[in-house]
């Protein structure tokens, strides 16, 4: 396994080397690795400070506004522009809701933040039997391949 990983890392470096050598890499300057400006509390509306386009993503800043739709449905953006999210969010921010193994449900960890969009508030051990019956596919984003530690006591 170790050998395979090492070989792959080498292959990737080599791949990047070839791309660079062939002049295929973009020559655009990378955007800042961490957001230069500290943001206030609450969900940021990028377009209140930024106009126009986030060059490294070729999209308008407005398309990253943390509207209620964005917060509910951020899968495509994170699949396309994960590096943009990383300018502000450490992976630990995502893992509050998305960890493969974790300590407690997000609404308990963030019990002092009712403004956050944490799943599973209230007595979810009861509610989940209703929501899971109606749509088990909505759970599979977070449970079913990972984050099953609390389930196996009842589901075998």
């Amino acid at each position, binding site marked *: 396994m170790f050998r395979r*990983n090492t070989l792959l*890392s080498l292959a*990737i*470096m080599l791949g*990047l080397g070839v*791309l660079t050598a062939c*002049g295929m*890499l*973009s*020559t*655009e*300057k*990378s955007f800042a*690795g961490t957001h230069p400006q500290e943001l206030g509390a*609450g969900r940021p*509306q990028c377009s209140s400070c930024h106009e126009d*386009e986030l060059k*490294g993503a070729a*999209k*308008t800043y*407005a*398309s990253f506004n943390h*509207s*209620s*739709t964005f917060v509910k*449905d951020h*899968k*495509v953006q994170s*699949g*396309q522009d*994960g*590096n943009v999210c990383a300018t502000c969010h*450490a992976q*630990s921010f995502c893992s509050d809701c998305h*960890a493969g*193994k*974790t*300590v*407690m449900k997000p609404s*308990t960890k963030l*019990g*002092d*933040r*009712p*403004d956050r969009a944490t799943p599973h508030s*209230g*007595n979810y051990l*009861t509610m989940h039997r209703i929501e899971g019956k*109606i749509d*088990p*596919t909505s759970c*599979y*984003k977070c449970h*079913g*391949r990972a984050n*099953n*530690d*609390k389930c*196996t006591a009842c*589901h075998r």
Partner: protein
Amino acid sequence: MTQRTNVVLLAALITATAGAQDVSVYGTTMAQMWKQDISGDKRTMAPAAQYLGIDASQLGTEALSLHLFGWGRTDLGDQSVPGSKSAGDLTYGYLQYRFAEANAEIKAGRFGITQGGAMEQVDGVSARTDLKGGFTASFFAGKPVLYKNLEGAAQKDYEYQHDFIFGTRLGWRMSKIGELGLSYLQDGTTAAKDLHVPSPVDYTRRQMGADIHLVPISIIDFTGRTLWDMAKHDEMATAPSRIAEHDYTLAVKIAPTFVVTGNFTERNFQAYFAGTNMPNLFRQTELGKHRGYGINVVLGPASAVQVVVDYRNTKRDSYGEANRFGGEVRWTIPESKLQTGLGLHRVLADNVISIDDRVPTYSLSHREIRAWVMYESGRYSASLDGIRQSFDDKHNPSLAGVSSQYEFVGSLGARLTPSIKLSGDLSLGANPLFKKEVRGLLRAEYRFSMARKGGK
């Protein structure tokens, strides 16, 4: 990874931070307590948890950084979680190199990755870069992080099949118009049918994905993706479709404070549940599909009064239809640092046909009300959160004859210094057996940054 390699890796990574120019350490320490009474079996639960993260940047060169995050939990009272009284996990620990051009970056170690249809935790390497002509390329490979949820032979099979994970995505962007992407993911190289003794459950995945984000004019924002299950299933003849998922969302920004969003999803159970390690719950043998569509209307700015009205219809072939509708109001008063919200929802759902003769059918319909308020002023903060669900049919066997349940959480916090915050929560609710339960929680959050400006 074994426990030992974890410790060695951790030690090596932490040592590496010594050379960093800028290190921040952050974490949350929590202690919870509640008394549990299940039919006379009384226990006192007192789990304590520690989350800890380290970000160290400019390790020798500007572009190299290190990121670590993990947690540990231990029961100071009776055992609170099935399994063991203590547990821990390294969520991630990786080195990252960012190039000055092309937004190129390389990661090595344990990391989480979202890329096209993939959302994985991997011990390995990843890289991404922008190419000329609006193209982007990214890939990752390594050993998938394994979880221990199965027993005996099944766990062995799962670990054997999950020897290797590989994913790649190619994207194409057109300035201010949007992006198209194609991705591929292979998780595990030996499928169940290739084992010496073919196993009934396949833990591997081969998945293709296509994703789109279109903003043709500033008032339209269209995102979506389709995933295909590419694995060879012997029993595929019976499966209705290789399409695992369609999920598309169209937002029309009629005005900055008036947005209408429509969403459509369809998921085929066999294809979508590929790779599950809970095959009895997320059943690939359920050959039907789930489909949903919904609409929501957002009125008002997020910085003042915002109203959201939503409706969603879903249909699961093996069960039936459900309609969920309702609304939410959020009111933010920035000068007084006060935020409050109220949500009301109604779910009208088809009856479940059960195998129990005493309750041949029962309803899942219910209503939910949630209200919360949060106040933050200088050093102090306070919040109150209440949720109540009432059920149309208390004969639902999940409800033990109860027709409603509620939970209230109150929290008080104080910021001792700019980098340390303490808070305490008290919650009042019921356990799954509908016995009253009071829980207490203490939380300390901290973040320390040590920047060494101007050379080592």
